[in-house]
């Protein structure tokens, strides 16, 4: 039997009952569509996650400095060594303590006698690079400089939310705030923080001034790196900050973008892949069931073909090819619908659709494989019929 004849007979058999074939195909269509959408959306969303990680997190490193009873693990001037590392864009050392987390801060009530100007705010000390390290900017005024630090000037920079709470709106008259009983001149208001947003409600004083609030040692170092340098800097930072005790520092590095994407994909995939596979199995059972019913209905036809000289393998091949074609059709339609859905979802979310070309090729093949497997039993059943019984 010529292959073209076999294909012709299988196609004719499939088209003989078009509605039934279409409904049978539907199971595979749903399964393949779900699979393609799952994998496509996961890849697209994963790519989107990578983009966000690149923008916000992938370059941010935090070094936690544990408390030391003797000499501090990280000196305040160690930040200069860190800043010299290639790939470091900005860095700042910060000192915080539980005692300074809720200090009473009061603004000068001469500005507005009716206003409640006493607030409970966090006070911390930091090196001069804090605005850049926190990815913020000075909304008003300026951040203190090394001169302020060296001289031990009683100056402070406050976060924009803290400024609002204290009623400090203008700096041109050098407003004062009282931290406990100590007066400080507010020289700047810091805002638009994209990292360490809690600083917007904090009062930041130079390290030299922070000692009187117990902010003696560096507790945290904020580092921003160039894109792709985070891993390298994370490895080098401890030694730069504390040459003798680097291993005691804890570096919190951003997760690997690839790993982040993979994790996101894995999470989505695990859920929806199961859904897709279940749909595919249901589709396969549908094909198997309908093909079996078709075989039973076509017993006289099988008898006729056997009488005309069809061998068992011809009968098996025809039914197997019919179910494979149904699966393949379902796979092609499912893959097309899946791709369209991924593109539509991406358009709605303003994402860039990301689809592996291999997926578009593999999906119809998977559909055909499902059809092939589903058709095995019915085909063998048809082939095993004796012609004399089939013609009876």
């Amino acid at each position, binding site marked *: 039997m010529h292959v073209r004849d076999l294909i012709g007979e299988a196609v004719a058999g499939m088209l003989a009952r078009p509605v039934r074939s279409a409904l049978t195909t539907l199971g595979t269509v749903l399964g393949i569509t779900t699979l393609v959408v799952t994998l496509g959306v996961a890849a697209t969303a994963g790519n989107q996650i990578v983009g966000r990680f690149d923008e916000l997190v992938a370059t941010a490193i935090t070094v936690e400095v544990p408390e030391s009873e003797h000499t501090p693990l990280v000196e305040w001037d160690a930040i200069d060594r860190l800043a010299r590392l290639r790939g470091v864009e900005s860095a700042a050392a910060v000192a915080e303590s539980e005692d300074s987390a809720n200090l009473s801060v009061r603004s000068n009530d001469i500005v507005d006698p009716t206003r409640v100007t006493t607030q409970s705010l966090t006070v911390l000390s930091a090196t001069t690079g804090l605005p850049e390290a926190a990815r913020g900017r000075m909304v008003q005024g300026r951040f203190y400089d090394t001169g302020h630090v060296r001289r031990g000037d009683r100056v402070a920079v406050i976060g924009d939310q803290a400024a609002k709470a204290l009623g400090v709106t203008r700096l041109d008259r050098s407003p004062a705030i009282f931290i406990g009983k100590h007066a400080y001149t507010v020289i700047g208001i810091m805002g638009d923080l994209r990292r360490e947003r809690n600083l917007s409600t904090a009062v930041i004083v130079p390290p030299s001034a922070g000692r009187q609030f117990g902010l003696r040692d560096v507790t945290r170092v904020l580092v921003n790196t160039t894109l792709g340098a985070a891993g390298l800097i994370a490895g080098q930072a401890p030694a730069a900050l504390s040459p003798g005790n680097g291993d005691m520092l804890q570096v919190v590095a951003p997760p690997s973008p690839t790993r982040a994407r993979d994790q996101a994909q894995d999470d989505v995939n695990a859920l929806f892949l199961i859904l897709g596979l279940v749909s595919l199995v249901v589709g396969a059972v549908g094909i198997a069931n309908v093909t079996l019913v078709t075989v039973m209905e076509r017993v006289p036809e099988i008898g*006729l073909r056997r*009488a005309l*000289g*069809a*061998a068992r393998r*011809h009968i098996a091949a025809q039914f197997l090819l019919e179910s494979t074609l149904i699966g393949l059709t379902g796979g092609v339609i499912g893959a097309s619908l899946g791709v369209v859905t991924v593109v539509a979802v991406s358009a709605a979310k303003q994402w860039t659709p990301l689809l592996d070309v291999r997926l578009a090729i593999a999906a119809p093949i998977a559909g055909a494989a499902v059809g092939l497997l589903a058709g095995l039993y019915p085909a063998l059943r048809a082939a095993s019929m004796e012609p004399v019984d089939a013609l009876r």
Partner: protein
Amino acid sequence: MAEPVIELTEVCREFPARPPVRALDRVTLRVDRGDYLAVAGPSGSGKSTLLNVLGLLDRPSSGSYRLDGTETTALRDGARTRLRGDRIGFVFQSFHLLSHRSVVENVMLAEIYRSGGARKGRARNEPAGSGTAVVGAGNASMASPRWSLGTVKQGRRGGRRARAMAALERVGVAHRAGFLPGLLSGGERQRAAIARALMGEPSLLLCDEPTGNLDSRNTEAVLDLFDELRGQGLTIVVITHEQEVGARAERRVRITDGVLVEEGWCTYAT
């Protein structure tokens, strides 16, 4: 002496039961090329079993069956299938036309499973010569007729439609070639089925109650067609319980309880 088309020797067919049912009981039958044989008998007499054995659809339990000189009883399933496809054309009572295929496609179906060994085999078994033969009473084996659909090119796939059309032309329903079988009358459907059986120029036309579903006019037309085909040298075996059909055959046998009895010959002049 030419090789007979059918040569059954002491053929038995038993079906397992308690006691076993013997549907064919030591049947011996020789059918020569160009014979037109009618097998008559009541229901349950073994007619269909005989047809199944002759058509290689079933195996005898014992005895020998030679088709076109080939001993078939020991052949494997694949070889029997090939032989069946190449040498035998079937005509069924219920036509067995595929309802979703056109008439010409139904006829073409007969060729797709052929191995192509039929003509080669016949060439080996037949003496040279062709044309319509006069088959005399009792001496059919002496003639070596060869019937043909005509001069249509004999390729494997190429020309299949043309050959199918020639077969339909031969049985007089070529004008219905593009129709679905459901739109044809019973007589036309049976003619289409005969056309399908004639595809590939088989050695033997096996007909199982070919007029069982036809009215008297169509029955007459089909029997006339058989007469014509026999006249062209085709070997025809008709299983029937209708006396009228049996009377048209040149040779009649009767089967009763599996036992075959020769009834007689009549002479045709073609």
